[in-house]
């Protein structure tokens, strides 16, 4: 028999862990299936594990390191009795009413691993890659999605950052600590990033911008030697010699497990109902970046995680549990 839990939370970023803190304090003994080690945002702790200084999370006047913040939230959830399991959900089935079966490990096993009365989805989002021919082959050999992990290896070198949002500029600014020059390649003529980040980037003498430009290929045999760039209006291409390429062009929701099981927006994000965390399936709640393509902040994720725990608690109460 699969182990049955009142509340299962899938994901352990700010949304999942805040949901865990609230559900644990409501004595629902939540189980958090936190993910497994990886170098992408699907690891326990989520996207903040790949960042350095978080300056806008309230309560930390001098800022806090992303991994440290997630460590604190994790310990806070454990303190109130949340159980964290370092594993990944391989399959879940929302076709019948609660309890919902979840599989860890073999997705084709007859018996699910666990069953949830109320299920909270907090699987977050992951970085988009460019999708150009040699990008994947050179990942780890000059192509990176984690400036904080790999910036160190590009001392006094010229590197490129793809993207125009806050994460791209954050990476670019961080990389100026090591690199001699950072070229930000952006497909439009203006940035999506916040004004404060734009101001910092424009002021930094090491950062330059290539506007209306897309990266069509990464060059190099055993490691990156350059990128091939195409101007979007003139369609002209040229090569830019760089030894590193950091990709920060945006995110997509980790909603693959949910496809066909509950209502998703056209862009793959989970649809929530009104001002709540409820989804199209009764007893399933969603919070954090998997359902938010507008704000996507640690604090909004944490806030929505709190909402999901309270919504789940009310839902369980109404069922008389």
């Amino acid at each position, binding site marked *: 028999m699969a182990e049955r839990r009142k509340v299962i939370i899938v994901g352990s970023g700010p949304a999942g862990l805040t949901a865990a803190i609230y559900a644990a304090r409501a004595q629902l003994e939540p189980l958090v299936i936190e993910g*497994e*080690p*990886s*170098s*992408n945002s699907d*690891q*326990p*702790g989520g996207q903040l*594990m*790949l*960042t*350095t200084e978080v300056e806008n999370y309230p309560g930390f006047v001098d800022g806090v390191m*992303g*991994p440290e913040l997630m460590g604190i939230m994790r310990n806070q959830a454990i303190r109130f009795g949340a159980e964290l399991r370092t594993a*990944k959900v391989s399959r879940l089935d929302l076709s019948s009413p609660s309890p919902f079966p979840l599989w860890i490990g073999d997705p084709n096993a007859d018996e699910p691993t666990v069953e949830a009365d109320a299920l909270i989805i907090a699987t977050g989002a992951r970085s988009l890659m460019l999708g150009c021919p040699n990008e994947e082959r050179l*990942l*780890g*050999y*000059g192509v*990176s999605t*984690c400036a*904080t*992990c*790999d910036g*160190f*290896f590009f001392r006094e070198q010229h590197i490129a950052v793809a993207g125009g949002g806050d994460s791209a500029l954050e990476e670019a600014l961080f990389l100026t600590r090591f690199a001699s020059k950072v070229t930000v390649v952006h497909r439009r003529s203006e940035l999506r990033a916040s004004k404060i980040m734009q101001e910092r980037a424009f002021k930094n003498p090491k950062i330059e911008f290539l506007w209306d430009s897309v990266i069509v290929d990464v060059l190099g045999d*055993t*490691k990156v030697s350059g990128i091939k760039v195409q101007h979007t209006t003139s369609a002209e291409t040229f090569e830019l010699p760089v030894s*590193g390429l950091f990709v920060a062009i945006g995110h997509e929701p980790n909603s693959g497990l949910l496809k066909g099981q509950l209502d998703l927006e056209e862009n793959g994000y989970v649809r929530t109902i009104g001002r709540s965390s409820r989804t199209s399936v009764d007893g399933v709640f969603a919070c954090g970046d998997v359902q938010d393509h507008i704000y996507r902040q640690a604090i909004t994720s944490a806030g929505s995680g709190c909402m999901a725990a309270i919504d789940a608690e009310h839902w369980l109460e109404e069922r008389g549990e």
Partner: protein
Amino acid sequence: MSEKIVTLSDATFDEHVKGSDVPVLVDFWAEWCGPCKMISPVLEEIAEEQAGKLQIGKLNIDDNLEVTRRFDVMSIPTLILFKNGEPEVRLIGAKPKGQLLQEIAAYL
């Protein structure tokens, strides 16, 4: 840290890795790397379980640039499995324990 894990440096790398009777899995890591922290407990477990068959070594890249450059490490965590002192497998990025063991199994 587990007693079964050896701390490597530029000065002691060759002695430990070339002089080892068993394969050595070297973890290139740094204090400031989030994914490196994630795989640390996984490596502790493997060190205990595989004791006598596999040696785990940790090399802090901040303090040991010579070895880091010698093996062209450009991303961390990077794990390199050395057999008879020669690099056999390179694993870039943090991975779950099962996958990690699977990728080095053929060399143990």
